[in-house]
């Protein structure tokens, strides 16, 4: 029985329970709703909740747990010498068995007996059904695959029986409890509150999930590459291993990637901070309401444009423009027309990322500047300071913690930005101080290590999680520090 049909059956039981509960409540009060503790619909919803949620929770739990139980059971049917292989190869064999099982489902019983007698028939037969096997397969695989099919069928059958049975039982239990003085509304509201609490813990679960997945995969990476080599290595050269080869070949030095990330972020901040801050000051202190109402949303459009569009802009417009203009400058200065800025460079990526960050700086700072109390502004203007002096000597110092916080948040965005650098920064991992040459970033390498079909056992893939964890903690640190600064210094001026 498919999961969808199980769900639909449970849903039908629940809806039927709703109407049954409602009418039982009404009839128990002799048809007068005023004789009931709660509105009649609450009695129905009470039965519905019981018939729906416990079985669904069971089903979710089952679906989470059963695959690992089944895979353990199947792995134990492998011959001993296969089981003693290293985990990577065992999981490869397990994958083969899975696809054989997929294929065997489409064959008729006669064909299956034939296949289990003669293993060489397996590959062509499955190929006819559109399933391509990497290897010819071995006899024990077919046995294991058959065990897998039967275990999965049993599991699914048990699941349907349990879920539907529990749904009926729960519905019956709830139905039995209905009487006029039963406080159905309070019970239903307790269900609802539980749902609300569950929803709010998803945020925590996400963080835990990020943390757990990063830590486990990074741990696997560090088991083949020592952490010191990763964190302090100055060479990035992860040679891609061929399938099945888990030997760590290549060097995974983080330093060049980190240097590129920070350098590009620095260039971006050098572009975004002055422009964004001046724009924010002008809009908060000088601009007429009309200008403000036009310029502010227009600048914020920049924040709504997807980063892939900025990447394309860097790739086809800004990069070639910088390259050509540098060639012309070189032509005028030295007579030799050679471009000293490459199309993909730190400057290109930083400049375009800076454009993207302008609205972040400007709208965050704008909010903070307008929050500075008007009395401070008036006081300064009243003793004869010009507007710019007021801004520089009174408002900016007062708004400084907020602005620093905003800049830190912006910096964390610059460090985590991916698509612009993927298209505009280049892929050469090297340490250089020349902004006209390509450098690469942590995010670029995460993408390039994980694009394409890869195994999740080689250090070449797992390094992406180590990079991701570095990125996560880097940005988390910046965010927490920004929050700390804002909280610590904010009170002074309020």
């Amino acid at each position, binding site marked *: 029985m498919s999961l969808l049909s199980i769900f639909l059956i449970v849903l039908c039981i629940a809806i039927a329970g709703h109407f049954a509960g409602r009418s039982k409540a009404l009839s128990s009060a002799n048809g007068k709703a005023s004789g009931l503790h709660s509105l009649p619909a609450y009695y129905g919803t009470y039965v519905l909740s019981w018939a729906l949620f416990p079985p669904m929770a069971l089903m979710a739990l089952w679906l989470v747990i059963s*695959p690992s139980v089944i895979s353990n059971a199947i792995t134990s049917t492998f011959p001993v010498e296969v089981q003693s292989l290293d985990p990577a190869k065992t999981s490869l064999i397990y994958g083969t068995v899975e696809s054989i099982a997929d294929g065997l489902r489409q064959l008729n019983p006669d064909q299956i007996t034939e296949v289990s007698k003669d293993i060489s028939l397996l590959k062509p037969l499955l190929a006819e059904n559109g399933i391509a096997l990497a290897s010819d397969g071995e006899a024990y695989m077919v046995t294991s695959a058959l065990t897998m099919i039967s275990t999965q069928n049993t599991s699914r059958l048990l699941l349907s029986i349990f879920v539907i049975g529990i749904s009926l039982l729960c519905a019956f239990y709830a139905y039995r409890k209905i009487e006029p003085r039963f406080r159905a*509304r309070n019970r239903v*509201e307790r269900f*609802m509150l539980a749902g*609300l*609490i*569950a929803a*709010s813990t*998803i*945020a925590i679960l996400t*963080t835990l*999930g*990020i943390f757990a*997945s*990063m830590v486990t*995969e990074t741990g696997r990476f560090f088991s083949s590459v020592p952490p010191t080599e990763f964190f302090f290595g100055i060479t990035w050269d992860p040679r891609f291993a061929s399938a099945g080869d888990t030997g760590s070949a290549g060097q995974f030095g983080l330093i060049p990637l980190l240097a590129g990330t920070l350098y590009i972020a620095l260039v971006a901040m050098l572009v975004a901070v*002055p422009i*964004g*801050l*001046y*724009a924010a000051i*002008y*809009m908060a202190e000088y601009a007429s309401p009309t200008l403000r109402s036009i*310029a502010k949303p*227009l*600048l914020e*459009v*920049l924040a*709504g444009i*997807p*980063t*892939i*569009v900025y*990447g*394309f802009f860097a790739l*086809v417009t800004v990069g070639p423009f910088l390259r050509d203009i540098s060639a012309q400058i070189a032509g005028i200065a030295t007579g030799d027309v050679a471009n000293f800025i490459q199309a993909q460079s730190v400057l290109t990526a930083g400049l375009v990322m800076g*454009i993207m960050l302008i609205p972040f700086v400007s709208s965050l700072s704008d909010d903070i500047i307008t929050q500075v109390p008007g009395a401070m502004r008036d006081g300064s203007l009243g003793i004869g300071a*010009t*507007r*710019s*002096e007021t801004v520089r000597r009174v408002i900016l110092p007062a708004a400084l913690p907020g602005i620093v916080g905003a800049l830190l*948040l912006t910096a*964390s*965005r610059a*460090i*985590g930005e*991916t*698509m612009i650098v*993927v298209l505009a920064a280049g892929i050469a991992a090297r340490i250089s101080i020349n902004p006209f040459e390509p450098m690469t970033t942590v995010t670029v390498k*995460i*993408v390039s290590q*994980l*694009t394409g079909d890869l195994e*999740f056992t080689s250090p070449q893939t797992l390094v992406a*999680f180590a990079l*991701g964890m570095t*990125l996560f903690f880097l940005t*988390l640190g910046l*965010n927490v520090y920004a*929050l700390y600064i804002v909280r610590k210094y904010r009170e002074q001026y309020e």
Partner: protein
Amino acid sequence: MSNSVADTSTASSVTKKRDLNLKKRYAAERRFRAMGIGAIAIGLFFLAALLFTVVSKGYTAFWQTSIALEITFDEGVIDSAKKRVEDPNILLMANYPRLARNALQSQLGLEKPTKPILKQLDGMISNGVRVQLREMLLSDPTLMGKTQKVWVLAEANIDSAFKGQIDLSVAEKNRKVSDAQIGWIDDLNSKGLIAQKFNTGLFFNGASSRPEMAGMGAAIIGSFYMMLIVLIQALPIGVAASVYLEEFAPKNRWTDLIEVNINNLAAVPSIVYGLLGLALFINIAHLPRSASLVGGLVLTLITLPTIIIATRAALRAVPPSIRSAALGVGASKMQMVSHHVLPLAAPGILTGTIIGLAQALGETAPLLLIGMVAFVADFPLTPLDPATALPVQIFMWANEAERAFVERTSGAIIVLLMFLAVMNIAAIILRKRFERRW
């Protein structure tokens, strides 16, 4: 006396000095203002440059050059042995591009062309003609032997040449279109047999390695599935979480932790969510790679903080008097929230949701990690089929080497920006229309 004169003169000279200073200070003031205006102008200039680049490179992608050919379904070419009744494969495998070439050759009045000329003729017409003519013949077998006028797609380089995007001053061997082909284009143009037609393929075709046939149909469907999944998951969960935090949660360390957590999640780089999706949904839960379901789940996690933050702001904007009134007439707390607070906060919640969806629609990096960079030629029928997304399609086209893809990329960006503009304008209208001041 002289002393007092000296005193007043020094006093007046001090005032004079301050006046001189004032000039300087006013100049500084003007400079400061100019910097502010300059900053805004630079920002707006960048916006204009970006939009101008995309639109100027991309608007031509919405038209595609087609050539009208008098195609003769020549039995001698398709099925010279007349065995198509026994072997239907003959009709599938037949050399349809040959028919198009013959038609083009006779239309241009070329007799006995040499091999290089034939090659250039082949280069005029898109290879998509194979499928187009085959479908025509399969749906109407009586066409065999007849002649019919058919508009077929021109090859990508011919398309570029016809749109005037190819620099003809470059030496012939350095450009992709030969002089002979240019001559033919002019010839066909004077007869009205070559024209730009609205490019429906851009919206409906799947991926293709040939620029003239590549479309973003599969990507649009993939993005649509993902938006749907995000909407049906992130909206209820986000609203439920915000209602709990705003209306029910006791102020303790646990709820404080959740709050800080949500604010931090909003600032986590999206690529980290991609890694999470890869580890959780693909490695552990064994969901299929490249499926829009996985993309939707990852985007849900990315969008949740945005929706929660917007919803909480909307809930906070509902005045406490509404709550007190509802509780006063005997509503339970849950009834107060669901009957009064939520409906009043709904416009704000919807605005936040639309903005969150728009953000999710433009998200690219996490989708690359869960394998949505796939060459998807067929439409995904369910969210479990391999699919791709609009921004990912843009990324893939941006990496193509052929220049005709630059036009397609910009065209796709225009479409993406249009979707985003519609969503954001809807959010603004919603806010303006239902905004209520208490």
